[in-house]
C-alpha cells in the first residue's frame, strides 16, 4: 500500500467492494429462507434449520471482522496519502 501512486483514489476501490460483499452476504443468506427451511441433515440431533443459522452467526462475525480490518487499512492508507500528498484530495 505504501508505494501506491499519488493520485486521487476513486471512491469505489476493489477493497471497498470486498468490504461491501462481506456486509451484504449475511442478508442474502438469511433472507433466502427457502435455502435452509428444512430439517435434514441434522447435527447431533439438531435439525438443519437451527444449526445452519447458528453457524451463520459465526460466519457473519468472521465476515464483519474481515470488513473491519480492511476498512481500517483503507482508512490508514488514505490518511497517510493525504499527509504525503498535502492537498491530496
Amino acid at each position: 500500500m505504501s508505494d501506491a501512486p499519488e493520485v486521487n483514489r476513486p471512491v469505489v476501490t476493489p477493497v471497498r467492494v470486498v468490504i461491501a460483499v462481506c456486509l451484504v452476504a449475511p442478508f442474502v443468506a438469511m433472507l433466502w429462507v427457502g435455502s435452509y427451511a428444512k430439517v435434514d441433515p441434522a447435527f447431533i440431533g439438531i435439525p438443519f434449520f437451527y444449526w445452519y443459522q447458528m453457524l451463520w452467526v459465526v460466519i457473519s462475525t468472521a465476515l464483519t471482522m474481515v470488513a473491519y480490518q480492511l476498512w481500517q487499512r483503507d482508512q490508514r492508507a488514505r490518511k497517510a496519502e493525504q499527509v504525503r500528498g498535502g492537498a491530496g484530495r
Partner: protein
Amino acid sequence: MNVLAAGTGGVNGIALAVFIFFFVAVTVMGFLAARWRKAETESLDEWGLGGRSFGTWVTWFLLGGDLYTAYTFVAVPAAIYAAGAAGFFAVPYTILVYPLIFTFLPRLWSVSHKHGYVTTSDFVRGRFGSKGLSLAVAVTGILATMPYIALQLVGIQAVLDVMGVGGGPDTNWFIKDLPLLIAFAVLAAYTYSSGLRAPALIAFVKDGLIYLVIAVAIIYIPIKLGGFDEIFQAADAKFSAANDAAGKPVAGLAPGEAGQWTYATLALGSALALFMYPHSITATLSSKSRDVIRRNTTILPLYSLMLGLLALLGFMAIAAGVKVENGQLAIPQLFENMFPDWFTGVAFAAIGIGALVPAAIMSIAAANLFTRNIYKDFLKPDATAEQETKVSKLVSLLVKVGALAFVLTMDKTVAINFQLLGGIWILQTMPALVGGLFTRWFHRWALLAGWAVGMAYGTLAAYGVASPTQKHFGGSSDEIPGIGEIGYIGLTAFVLNVIVTVVLTFVLRAAKAPDGIDETSPEDYTADAGDPGVIEELPPATAGAAH
C-alpha cells in the same frame, strides 16, 4: 417473606434466598456506580451518557445488556415453545443487525460528538432544521419505549410467579404485587442517583449470570432429557398433533412455504428497527470513539449465539413435559423442574437482573428524548445544563412509574400489543435518521409526511390482525399489498413511508419549498475522537477504574 407466601402453596425457599442475595448485591452496586469514573460537572452528558467515556468492553456489556433483555430471554423460547421454527427469527434478526450497525452508527457517533447531540431527534433537528420532524422522532421514540419497559416487568413477574411469590389469583392485589413494587422502587432509586453508570456496571453481573445459566442449561438439560434427538422428536410429535387438531400447519420444526416470507420480513424489519430505539442509541453514543462501535460489531454476535441456544430451550420445555397456559412461564418453569433449587435461584436472578438493566437504560433514553426535544425545544428553550439533568432524572422516574401502572392495571397482552406496535412505529423514523446520515436530498416535509403515512398504515394494519384469542393486534404480520404473501407489517409500512418520502421530495424540490438549514458539514460524519472540534471525553475522576 413468609407473609407473601401465605396461601400460594409452593414457595421455593432456597431459590428465593439465592434470588434475593443477587438482587441485594446488585442494588448495592447500582448505588455505588455513581462514583465510578465520575467527572465533577453535573450535565446531561454525565448522567445520561455516562460522560461518553465507555470503552469497547463496557460498551459491549452495555449494548448486550440493553438489546438482549429479560423479555427476550423469556419471550423467544416461549415463541418456540408455542410455534416452533417461526420463533427462531430472532437469530437471523440479530445476525443482520451487526452489518447495519457497522455501516451507519459510526457516522451518527461522529456527528453527535461534533455537535453535542444526545438523542436521534437532536440529530434530525440539526440536519434538517425542522423542529416538527424532530418532535415526531422524539414522540415516536418515547411511545415505542414505554411498553418495552413494561415488558421487562412482565419478565420479572414471570419469574416471581414461578417462585411462588407472585401470589395466587385470590391474593390481595397489594401483596401480590409487592415484590414487583420493591424491585421497581430499587431500580428507580439507583437510576435516579447514578444515571447510565448504574446499568453499565450491573450489566457485568447480569451477563455473567446469563452466560453461566445458559452454558449450564444447554449442557445439563439435554443430558437429563436424553439428547437433542429425543428433544426434537418430542417437539415434532407435539407440533404434528397441534397441526392435525387445527387442520392446517400452525407449527413445525422448519417453516413451511407460506411462513418463509413472514420469517424473512420479520428478521429484516426487526433488525432495521432495533437501532432506531432510543436505548440502543444511548448505549452507542456513550462509547468513547467511533472505532469502539465498529470493534463491537465483531464481538457482539456472541450474544446472538447465546440467543440461538436459548431459543432451543423452548424445545426442551416441550420435551420435559412442561405444560403452562401462559407461554411466558415455560422457561422459568423448565428451570424450576430441571435444576437443583439453588441453581434455579441463580437462573431466576439472571432473568430478574436482566430486566433491570434494560429497563434502566430505556427509561434514561426516553427521559433524554423528552428533555432535549420536547422540554428544551418547546417548553423552556433557555434551560441550563443543571435544569436539563434535573428534568431528565424526574422524567426517567415518571416513565418507570408509567410502565409500572401499565403492568399493574392492564392485562399483560396489552403490554405485548403495544410493544408490537412500538416496533412498527420506531421503524418509521428510519428514513429521517439513516437517510439523514448519508444524504441531505430528502425534504423535511416529505420525511414528515412519509412518517405519518407509515405510522397510520402500520397502526391500522396491526389493529386489523385477529388471532384465535384476540380480535385486534393479534400479531405483527399481515398480507403485503401487491405481493400477496404474509409479511411483517412494520416493513410494509416502512416501504410505503420511503415511497411517499421520495415522491414528495421530488414534488417539493420542484416546487422549491423552503429547505431547512443544515448545521452539519460532510466532514462531521467521519470525525473521530481526537479530531479538532470533537467533544473530548470527560476525564475519569477515579484512576484505575477505567476499562
